[in-house]
């Protein structure tokens, strides 16, 4: 299995980065700078909003990819976790005048607490049972949210007032009130979350997770506290998903419980698997699949149902033939194509006609 070939990144002796590593860092920096400075200028407002969603959902798929790819925990309740984060952020934004970054942090921490409360008992289960219990919990959260509703500026603990005629929008940070500015803001948050996850993967927790994913008994024998590191992964994933929920609240201004149906959790797992769970790029690809493609199809007047069908086919394809997803497959196929074309071009001048 390719999955097991993933580097476990042993504590490496400090050495100079290799050439491929430098190229990778270079490409990433250029892409990020392009997205930050040029993208909002080039795109229409419709696509700027879409790209904000992509930034938000890349954090969500990052969290899910972390659980699935690094630790081997399949969660079918990620959309519900996102809803908790969005709820907490919206409540805080209506109730207080705290600066936005602080609210994001608090929303993340609240979601983390909720995630821990769920994770503490659920992590006694493994594999299929854990996946199904997350699905059950997501179902419960959806039902609760449908009843208590999202805060809309009302009073009380729940902050919902069904009789409100003029619902105030959820506020944005003052430095990012316009849509392009908010896109840049979301991007910065997303980059920070990616950096947080990368820092985990490259250090002790990442190595523990890799060991757990390959074999729990072996990890246990190696003296790794399986339960603790699984809970850590759960907490980290909940935290960053909660932050994403906070960004989402500001992005769409109004939150409704029908925006977070249980089936979204299932679709999220599908796109995360398609994007690729063994690389951080996979999360970006997954978010593009999940948010950019529907916007594109919508613009072209094509039904989004085709996309659902595509996701279904994608899941089957990933599970049967390409476990590392698009983030791995596309560069490899491109490299293969490049080599093929290179050989062809070199052969041409020699007058080799087949």
């Amino acid at each position, binding site marked *: 299995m390719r999955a097991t070939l993933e580097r476990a990144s042993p504590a490496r002796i400090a050495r100079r980065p290799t050439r491929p590593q430098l190229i990778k860092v270079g490409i990433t920096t250029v892409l990020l700078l392009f997205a930050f400075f040029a993208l909002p200028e080039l795109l229409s407002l419709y696509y700027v909003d879409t790209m904000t969603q992509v930034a938000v959902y890349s954090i969500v798929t990052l969290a899910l990819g972390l659980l699935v790819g690094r630790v081997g925990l*399949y969660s079918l309740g990620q959309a519900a976790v996102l809803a908790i984060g969005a709820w907490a952020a919206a409540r805080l934004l209506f109730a207080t005048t705290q600066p936005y970054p602080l609210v994001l942090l608090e929303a993340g921490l609240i979601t983390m607490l909720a995630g821990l409360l769920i994770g503490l*008992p*659920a992590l*006694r*289960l*493994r*594999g*299929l*049972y854990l*996946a*199904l*219990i997350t*699905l*059950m*919990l997501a*179902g*419960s959260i959806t*039902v*609760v949210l*449908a*009843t208590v509703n999202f805060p809309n500026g009302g009073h009380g603990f729940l902050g919902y007032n069904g009789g409100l005629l003029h619902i105030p929008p959820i506020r944005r940070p003052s430095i990012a009130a316009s849509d392009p500015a908010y896109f840049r803001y979301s991007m910065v948050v997303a980059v920070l979350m990616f950096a947080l996850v990368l820092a985990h993967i490259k250090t002790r927790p990442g190595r523990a997770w890799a060991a757990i994913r390959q*074999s*729990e*008994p072996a990890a*246990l024998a190696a003296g790794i506290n399986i339960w603790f590191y699984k809970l850590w992964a759960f907490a980290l994933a909940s935290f960053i998903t909660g932050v994403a929920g906070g960004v989402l609240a500001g992005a769409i201004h109004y939150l409704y419980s029908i925006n977070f149906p*249980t*089936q979204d959790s*299932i*679709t999220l*797992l*599908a796109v995360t*698997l398609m994007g690729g769970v063994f690389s951080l790029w996979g999360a970006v690809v997954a978010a593009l699949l999940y948010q950019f493609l529907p916007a594109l199809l919508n613009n072209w007047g094509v*039904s989004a*149902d*085709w*996309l*659902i*069908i*595509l*996701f*279904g*086919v*994608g*899941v*089957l394809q990933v*599970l*049967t033939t390409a476990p590392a997803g698009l983030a791995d497959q596309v560069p490899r196929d491109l490299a293969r194509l490049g080599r093929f074309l290179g050989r062809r071009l070199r052969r041409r001048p020699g007058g080799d006609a087949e």
Partner: protein
Amino acid sequence: MPPWVDFEPFIVSGLALGGVYALSGVGLVVLYRATGVLYLAFGAVGALGALIAWSLITRAGAPGWAGWLACVAVAGAVTLAYGLLFGPALARRDPLIKAVATIGLTLILYGVMDLLWTTSGGQARSLTLPTDNGGFTVAQIQVTWTQVIALAAGVVLTVGTGAFLRLTKLGTAMRAMANDRDITATLGVPVRKVEAAAWLGCGILGGIAGLLLADLVALDATTLTFLVISSLAAVLIARLRSITVTFVAAIVIGLLHDLLTPIASLTSYRDMTPFVIAAIGLLVLSRHQVMTQSREEA
């Protein structure tokens, strides 16, 4: 607390709902035991069958029985086709991966259904069985034949499947495969054929459940597709193993769900019933876990 009279009608509807959950649960358990696949597309194939039946009956003017037969046949055929195509490819993978793969099928079917039977138009479809009209009264509670059929189907299929697994050759082969696929194959059991039979049986049950739920709950792709999550609760409590426990859990879930309806403070939370019961059941049952390396891990 409302008076008892308010609860009475919900006992009947709860038992009917529990019967369908039991029927679905038994189908899921048998397939899981025989092939190791938890079939998450169970609701989706039922929904597809029910929608095709609806089209045949209301659009093409086909007689009722033809529509119902088509529903069961389509559900069985789709399930069998999936099992034949992807069963062997994923046979040696973890049960988790096999279950996630059926999510792929669920999404494909859901997309197709939403495309062909669009819900945005707003017109509500309904599939009513002729058994809705007839019925009888027990202690002043109106009971329709459909409700009787739903509960009876649950009971009959649980007992029937139990007997089938115990008494027939095919059933014995399925139980053997549940224990160890490789040894069963070595003993000369045609593993692929037995698996195919399990897939077909599960699909047919999916079709029957889809037909009954379309009548009892709603004929809507989203509802029917994701209603499987509720049946899963019963299966989970039975730890994907015992059909008797599945049956009992399904009846309890169906009953509790409907009995919460008249209680004003809880009525909007009643859809949580299966999830809460499953969560509590699983957590209590998993207290003493043993770490295993086997593929049959639970």
